């Protein structure tokens, strides 16, 4: 396949678009906030299955509200008769809370009820989990920066970090816009996105560096364009196979993995976009040329 798409001509438009979505994401994260799950907010989560599929969601809500548990959230979860209940963390939520909820529901709904999953996270643990999640994401960004810093020139490091922030912030921003739940598995997804996005960026950067040396007469725009085109086939194929795997999890993997796989799908799409339209333009911004490479090249290549 001989592709020759003029990507660099679209850099400007793409950058404006990216900046716009980036700012919107930040605004949403700051002002609308994130919908933290019980992992990070504390509280109780119950996944229940009732044998009576006629049970109404409002009946469940009503009988839980009668217990004065504070903020209660009920939603359907997968199959008919499956529900997910979330109860706000309250001081003095005791060991009896879960059996009490079960008793109340069985009495009020007149159905056999099976608690398939119960999660209960205390306020202290949830704040620790949030903290370690934030540390993990920051640390992974720092580790990537460090890796790129020893492998490439500083202009490349900045480019890849800009692309990483772009991907992470926009993914989280979309979660904020859609009010999707942020829990431990979303943190795992974000970290994987960091890895994936970096992977994509590195492949293009590797090629740009090679081409800068090979075609010294080309300017950075032309080199970036050439490199993106040369690696485009790989970029698309890898994205497609990864997305195929992720779609398979999203559709067939069950409710528990849905948020995780959705975040990953978003991340792969945004990550692929950013390595072409964010990471490469940064090099153009810094006016990278084959001269930039010379000094360092000799030291690094074994």
């Amino acid at each position: 396949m001989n592709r020759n798409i003029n990507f660099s001509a679209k850099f400007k438009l793409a950058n404006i678009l990216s900046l716009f979505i980036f700012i919107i994401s930040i605004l949403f994260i700051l002002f609308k906030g994130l919908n933290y799950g019980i992992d990070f907010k504390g509280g109780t989560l119950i996944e229940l299955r009732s044998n009576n599929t006629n049970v109404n969601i409002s009946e469940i809500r009503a009988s839980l509200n009668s217990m004065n548990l504070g903020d209660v959230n009920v939603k359907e979860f997968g199959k008919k008769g499956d529900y997910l209940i979330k109860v706000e963390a309250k001081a003095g939520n005791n060991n009896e809370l879960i059996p009490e909820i079960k008793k109340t529901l069985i009495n009020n709904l007149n159905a056999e009820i099976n608690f398939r999953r119960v999660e209960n996270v205390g306020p202290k643990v949830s704040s620790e989990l949030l903290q370690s999640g934030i540390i993990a994401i920051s640390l992974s960004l720092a580790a990537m920066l460090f890796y790129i810093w020893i492998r490439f020139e500083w202009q490349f490091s900045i480019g890849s970090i800009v692309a990483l922030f772009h991907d992470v912030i926009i993914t989280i921003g979309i979660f904020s816009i859609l009010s999707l739940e942020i829990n431990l598995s979303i943190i795992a997804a974000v970290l994987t996105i960091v890895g994936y996005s970096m992977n994509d960026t590195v492949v293009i950067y590797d090629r740009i560096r090679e081409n800068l040396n090979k075609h010294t007469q080309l300017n950075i725009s032309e080199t970036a364009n050439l490199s993106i085109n040369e690696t485009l086939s790989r970029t698309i194929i890898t994205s497609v196979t990864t997305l195929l795997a992720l779609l398979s999890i999203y559709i067939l993997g069950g409710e528990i993995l849905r948020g995780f796989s959705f975040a990953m799908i978003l991340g792969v799409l945004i990550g692929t976009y950013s390595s072409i339209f964010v990471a490469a333009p940064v090099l153009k911004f810094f006016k990278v040329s084959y001269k930039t490479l010379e000094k360092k090249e000799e030291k690094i290549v074994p």
Partner: protein
Amino acid sequence: MLNFSKINILSIYLIFLFISFFSILNFQNEKDPLINKKVNLGLDLQGGSYLLLEIDSDPLIQEKIQSKVIPLKKLLKKNNLNYSNFTINKQDLIFSLNDVEKFKLLLFSKKDNFLNPYIDKYNSFELDLEILENNNVRVLFSKYGLLTINNSALKQSIEIVRRRIDDVGTKEPTILQRGDKRILVELPGLKNPERIKNLLGQTAQLNFRLVADNEEFGVDQLISENGEELNVSKRIVMSGENLIDAQPNFNNQSNEPTVSFTLDRLGAQKFGRTTTDNVGKRLAIVLDGKIVSAPSINEPITSGSGMISGNFSFQEATDLALLLRSGALPTPLDVVEERTVGPDLGEDSIKSGITSLVIGFVLVIFFMIYKYKIFGLVANLALIANLIMLVGVLTILEATLTLPGIAGIILTVGMAVDANVLIFERIKEELKTEKSIIHAFDIGYTKAKITVLDANITTLIAAVILFAFGSGPVKGFAITLGIGIITTLYSAYFLARHLTSMIVLKKKEGEINL
């Protein structure tokens, strides 16, 4: 890059076979395993409970500081120190003294100091002294004193938690210390987590105390099992420490469930003396500050055994006996995190995990054949080998497979072909300029090597950090993702490269179609 020596080939496939062998171990007969290694299923897949318990050391510290009062007062008296305004607080003792300096010397003397022992391990005394204004002093536990109390309480709690869980008889429980205040408990395949939580949530401090209206030690007003308010002496006749056994039983006459207990020699003596002296009075059996029952003493009990009845169901009697047998927790435990998955949800998760794995795998395989024909087949063979090795390594490490871990495997399937794609695309480019096909393949592999490594190391970094910071199921994801990257590199750079070389070297020029 396409030349392999015989030793090379041999070692590539031997390593592959060695690792693959372990993946087969997961399918052997469970009862008679050849080598007892397999991938463990996480609690989210096999069902079970994860509990994180935290000790609450405040009541214990209060108790310990109170226990210092009598020896402290004795010491003051013996050394002719006059004290006044003695107040006992939750964490400290405050009083005023006529000679603060003398007290300081006494408190921090290393010789025969029963009040304030020196902890060699930390180079510190158990108690600390703060001198306040107007000759007031504050006696409190030092940092290391608190640490010692906390550590011994935690050790003791772990021991008692273990006894209680073992007594219930769940299979393969995991009980571990986490940090300096927490205990992690994992109970696979547990049917009724509420019962365990209930058992672990009680300190089970058992006391026998006389019911009395006025007493020199003072009284506590407690509520009995049938709602009666009783004044119970603060003096403890005998505590649960003197129990050597407790069993659920049925009362001969009423046929009600009861708990019968046996006392040690000391306990039997104390119990015998008290019941002899107080015939006709009532003896309250107090568990964690609540009266279980307060029977009248009809006759002296000197046999060293007795019975507790108190409107129990048989289950309650069984649990009470269990609690008494295991001993009291030194301090209350709070459940700060709980995650329980029912076995049916676990089965569903395994099913949906495997279904999505198979479908994802098939989609990727067809896509690769569509894109690369025979070399797609090579990439697919490498992918299958990759999966087998991934399971093999998980088995060698006896890692725990969780639902997110299965997602990690599926993701590996999607991302693993990347290495081969990078190589094949590179070869395609080289084929455009290079006349010799063999040469093109050779250069392709060499040039793609750095990029493939770069690209995979980034994901590996993410996996390592996730492993370090993640908990439970997420850790399982990090494990499969991380090992997946390593097996991917192996299968692309050794297995697939060798297969490719066989095809390239066999076919004639012009027949290669990438």
